C-alpha cells in the first residue's frame, strides 16, 4: 500500500468524527487528529478501533499512546501490517 492509499483509507475512517471540515480538506501527514480535525478525545478510541478493524491489526496501549496524528497512525499501521505478514 502506498502512503497516498493509506491516507485515503485513514480519511474514510476519521471522517465521521471530524469537527473541523477545513482541517479535513487539507488532511495530510502533518495533520493532528485533535488540534487540526477537532476530533474529540473519546472518539479517538473509535478511530483506533476502526483502524484495528479495517487493517485487521491490534493496536497495543504503547502504540495507542502516540496515535494522535496522521503520521504516527501511518507508522503504526505499517509496522503492525509488516508484523502480521511475518507471522
Amino acid at each position, binding site marked *: 500500500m502506498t502512503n497516498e492509499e493509506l491516507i485515503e483509507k485513514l480519511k474514510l475512517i476519521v471522517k465521521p468524527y471530524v469537527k473541523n471540515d477545513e482541517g479535513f480538506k487539507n488532511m495530510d501527514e502533518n495533520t493532528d487528529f485533535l488540534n487540526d480535525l477537532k476530533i474529540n478525545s473519546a472518539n479517538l*478510541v473509535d478511530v483506533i478501533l476502526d483502524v484495528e478493524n479495517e487493517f485487521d491489526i491490534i493496536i497495543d496501549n504503547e502504540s*495507542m499512546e502516540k496515535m494522535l496524528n496522521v503520521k504516527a497512525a501511518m507508522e503504526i499501521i505499517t509496522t503492525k501490517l509488516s508484523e502480521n505478514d511475518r507471522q
Partner: protein
Amino acid sequence: MTGNDIVDIELAAAESNWKRKGFIEKIFTSAEQQYITDAITPDKMVWKLWSMKESAYKIYTRQFGGYFFAPQKFSCIMLNETSGMVIISTQLYYTITITNEKYIYSIASTDKSTGEMLLHGCFILPVMDLLKQQQYIYEKIINRYALLTAKEKKKILVWKNESGVPFLYEQGNKSKTPVSITHHGSYAAFCI
C-alpha cells in the same frame, strides 16, 4: 494546580457508543470496568471516570509536558459519589465530580482541598460555531477574573502556549496565570 473536564451527556450519547466492542477495554482498567458494571447508571459512570482522567491529564501535562493518549495510565479510585483520586506513575490528583442530568464535570487538583482555587465557573454556551464559542468562553473568563482582581478587562488576555495549554496574561505584567478550560456541546467551564 487544577485541571477540569466537562461532558455534555446528551452529546456524549450521540457521539460515542461506549458499548461497542473493545471501547471500554481500551480506556479503563479492570478496577474501573468493575465500577461501571456495578453502577446504577453505567453511562454516567463511564463519563465520570472519563472526565476524571481527562482533568488529571490536563494537570499532568502542565507539570511535565508531553502530548499523548494513554487513558488507562490514569487510574481512578472513587472515594464516594463525588470525590475520587487519579493516579499516574508517582503522581496523585484529587478530583471532585459534579453529576446532573445535563453534564458531568470534574475538577482535578494537586491539593487535597480545592480551596486553593481562585475562581471557577460553569455555564451554558449559546449555539454558535466552535471558534465563536471559544471567544465567548474567553470573554467570560476575562470578565470574571477582572471583576475578582479589580483589573482592567482590556489588559487581560487568554493565550495558549505552543503546547496548546491556556494561560491568562496581563499587559505590562510578565507573570502568567494558568487557567484550565473545558467545553463540550452546550456546556463550558473554567478554573483558575
